[in-house]
């Protein structure tokens, strides 16, 4: 029995099932040749995974801080590497986000992807397995394994189904993230050498020397900062987004970016807390630069997709800001912003993709004046655009409110600077919204959203308003874990 892990109470390994369900689907798809059947099979697989994760969510006990649904099998015993899984209030939310986004991703590429459908669907499903795996792993090596496994399908998504400049973008993405991964590996090995185990929970809140913490934080920090991406490591992101197919952008924005912030929360804070305190001012300054810089760059964009991509830099700045306030409000806000950004920005990328399929352009001018032509589209676009700049009543407002409360409580100057970013966000989003709704008068032959598109946007839209107006059920799930994290950090700081 491990003190930090409650074993899985069910007759089947529920976490492993969630992780490998998509891979299981791939086994079937490998032997299929009919494109339609492949799509249907991928869809069914993604929905089954969603069902298992929903089962997970329903049975999740939000009143404990111990990792749940634990599984532990010895893997490489000579190095004390275990196949160890378990989830807490942080990971459950991100797993759910992943399993909700995946079927939407499959559905959204139904028509958009015409070449190599089989390989495409396989890539999506492998991605899903790797992403869920990252959030479930409690062993560093296992974590690293899934972390790297995400890279390849993502690279393929950009390099094969990407836009005209896909070679440059995919290579940049690959090199950037691989560069970060090297530092991650160094940090992991350093921790192993001190602890003699790759168990993540066992590495938390130990009395490491400050010097050790300093270097480990730096190594982790670079790896995660690239992934987030934080200013000044963000340059790969707009390139990758503009060239990636819609699904690639959705995965990238909704889930892959969360890996970085998840890393900060899961590793940096509990494992090297003193170094986290030490670096907090720097992190806060960088996050605020990201928020404001990202906003101003958005103001000058003429490419819709680039605009949404740069807005991600600003949004993720809010997440980092929340994390490094070390307060419960900041943590809840940060986790909320991760989910919100996943839903809202994911939604915006889907909407940009939709209009791209019709006009074959991402330029704002080419997609302007859709108010009369595509009223249903305009409704969704309006909702997600106002959610993106944290309009009250939408999900992002709740997250931003929590983050700002945390920020103002810790440092009012940081709070005021973040507010500047929030104002700029309103400016660029309202500007975009006005252009898309009314920017042109001429009539063009563009069809409004079809039923399939409405079906996959509706769940996201419901989430936007649900979290915006009734966030408590979500807070309840994550609260214990985050309060525990804040309390533990508080102890260390004294």
């Amino acid at each position, binding site marked *: 029995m491990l003190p930090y892990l409650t074993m899985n109470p069910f007759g089947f390994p529920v976490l492993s099932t969630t992780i490998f369900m998509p891979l299981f689907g791939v086994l079937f798809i490998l032997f299929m040749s009919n494109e339609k059947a492949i799509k249907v099979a991928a869809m069914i697989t993604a929905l089954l995974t969603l069902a298992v994760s929903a089962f997970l969510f329903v049975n999740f006990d939000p009143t404990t801080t111990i990792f749940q649904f634990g599984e532990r099998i010895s893997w490489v015993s000579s190095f004390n590497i275990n196949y160890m899984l378990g989830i807490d209030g942080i990971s459950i939310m991100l797993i759910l986000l992943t399993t909700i986004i995946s079927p939407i991703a499959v559905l959204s590429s139904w028509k958009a992807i015409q070449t190599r459908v089989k390989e495409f669907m396989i890539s999506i499903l492998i991605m899903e397995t790797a992403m869920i795996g990252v959030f479930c792993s409690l062993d560093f090596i296992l974590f690293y394994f899934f972390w790297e496994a995400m890279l390849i399908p993502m690279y393929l998504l950009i390099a094969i189904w990407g836009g005209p400049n896909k070679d440059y973008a995919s290579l940049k993405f690959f090199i950037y993230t691989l560069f970060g991964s090297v530092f991650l590996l160094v940090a992991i090995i350093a921790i192993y050498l001190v602890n003699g185990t790759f168990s993540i929970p066992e590495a938390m809140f130990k009395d490491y020397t400050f010097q050790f913490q300093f270097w480990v934080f730096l190594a982790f920090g670079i790896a995660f900062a690239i992934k987030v991406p934080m200013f000044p490591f963000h340059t790969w992101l707009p390139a990758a987004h503009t060239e990636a197919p819609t699904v690639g952008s959705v995965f990238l924005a909704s889930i892959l970016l969360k890996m970085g912030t998840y890393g900060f929360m899961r590793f940096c804070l509990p494992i090297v807390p003193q170094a986290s305190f030490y670096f907090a001012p720097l992190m806060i300054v960088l996050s605020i630069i990201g928020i404001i810089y990202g906003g101003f760059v958005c103001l000058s964009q003429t490419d819709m997709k680039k605009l949404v991509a740069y807005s991600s830099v600003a949004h993720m700045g809010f997440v980092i800001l929340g994390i490094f306030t070390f307060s419960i409000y900041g943590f809840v806000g940060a986790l909320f912003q991760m989910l919100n950004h996943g839903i809202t920005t994911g939604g915006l990328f889907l909407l940009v993709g939709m209009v791209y399929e019709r006009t074959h352009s991402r330029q704002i001018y080419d997609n302007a004046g859709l108010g009369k032509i595509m009223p249903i589209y305009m409704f969704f676009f309006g909702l997600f655009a106002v959610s993106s700049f944290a309009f009250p009543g939408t999900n992002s407002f709740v997250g931003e409110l929590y983050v700002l409360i945390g920020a103002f409580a810790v440092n*009012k100057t940081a709070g005021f600077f973040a507010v500047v970013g*929030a104002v700029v966000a309103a400016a660029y989003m309202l500007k975009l919204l006005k252009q898309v709704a009314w920017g042109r008068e001429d009539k063009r032959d563009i069809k409004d959203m079809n039923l399939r598109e409405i079906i996959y946007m509706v769940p996201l839209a419901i989430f936007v308003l649900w979290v915006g107006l009734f*966030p408590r059920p979500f807070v309840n799930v994550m609260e214990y874990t985050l309060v525990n994290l804040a309390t533990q950090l508080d102890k260390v700081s004294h």
Partner: protein
Amino acid sequence: MVIESALPLLSMGIVFVSAILIMASRKSPNIREFWSIGGAILTFLTVMAMVPIIWEGGVIKYTLSTIAPGISLNFRVDALSLIFGIVSSFLWIFASIYNIGYMRTLKEHAQTRYYTCFAAAILGAQGVSYAGGLFTLYLFYEVISLFTYPLVAHHQDADGYAGAKKYVIYLVGTSKGFLLPAVILTYVMTGTLDFADNIHTGIFPAGSDSIWVTVTYILFVAGFAKAAIMPLHNWLPSAMVAPTPVSALLHAVAVVKAGVFSISRVMLSTFGTNILNDLGIGIVTAYVVSFTILTASIIALTKDDLKARLAYSTVSQLSYIILGIALLDNTGVLGGIIHIVNHGFSKITLFFCAGAIFVAHNKRKISDMAGIGHVMPFTMGAFAIASLSMIGVPPVAGFTTKWYLLNGALEISSIPIVAVLMVSSLLNAGYFVPITIRAFFQGKKSDWSTSGIKEAPLTMVAPLVITALISVLLGFYPDFFVTLISNLF
């Protein structure tokens, strides 16, 4: 006496459903306008259903959901809420009728969008009135900004876009840039965003850092730019590019009153009169808004465009409301709050008249209106009555306001404020009386018409005559609202 009731939610629900129905019946204008008027009447009745409870000194509360400890999506109806709720829902009835005449005569485009956004703006105004805390207030305050944007930009020409751009920059810029940090600072200092039940104590605990309390207060006042306190007033004249019914209901009543209402609410229920007194910011506020009262009136004198003159008159009159609250004694507060009603009825009449003149004779400039009273006797008669109210002549509504404000100023022995009120009455007379004189006593009837009276359609004239008559009624019988407001003290 606290009563748990979903009535405020019901009234907002009715507005929401009306907006949906309006959108759904885009194909048949008659049904669409039916929903608009029907929704307005039903909303008003629901609001009136809350009157007995408040009349008895009760407060209605309802919590819909909790956002964080001390932050919730909640509703709280007291006399202040109800005053604004009644005014916005009651005048929506008249505006809906007036809209028909205006929009159809001018064959305006995108009427469904127009009516839907109109209803959504009223939804926001209702939400602001019944907000039980700053979270809810902020939410509905922003709803108003968002849905009035398409109304200001309605004509979708260069002027419309320019006006709307200014509108959104001023309103959303201030609410994100100033109001949001003010709300968060309040929460950080007090641990709650709910409003206090007592207008004297507020929610700030004893010993709060007075500098940060003051900063928060300033951010609040600057953040509610809908109140059009100088120098954050400039969006209002620009918003006059909107169709006149929008200027009438929204930019004389719902939107701008949401601003002054919010400031009043925050002054009374978040800060409380005690702390404002102790810090001495009440009287400073009074001086700041006095500057707005006088300056806006002087600018109004120079405007020849009728709507522009009315807009600056609004800027000036809105500050009366805040002036009354800022006096921080019961008489002054009463005078400020009752002006929400008095100004609402009178100013909507004036804008209705401006729209009627435009529809019937295509005139905007006051200098072109010599003799118009001969052909539009009802409209210009209503205009004369409403302008008397603005000046504060008994027995029209505005007199009640001036009476209480003067008494309030004398009670705190503030001679400068008394002087401001006197000078501003003269200025009001200076820019309103000439319009009436010109309409009735200058020009010739033959310049206007050969066939006698030429008024705007009945759907426009009837509402403006009724609102003018109500202005008189309010002056004769202010007791209903006075008694209601007294429940606050």
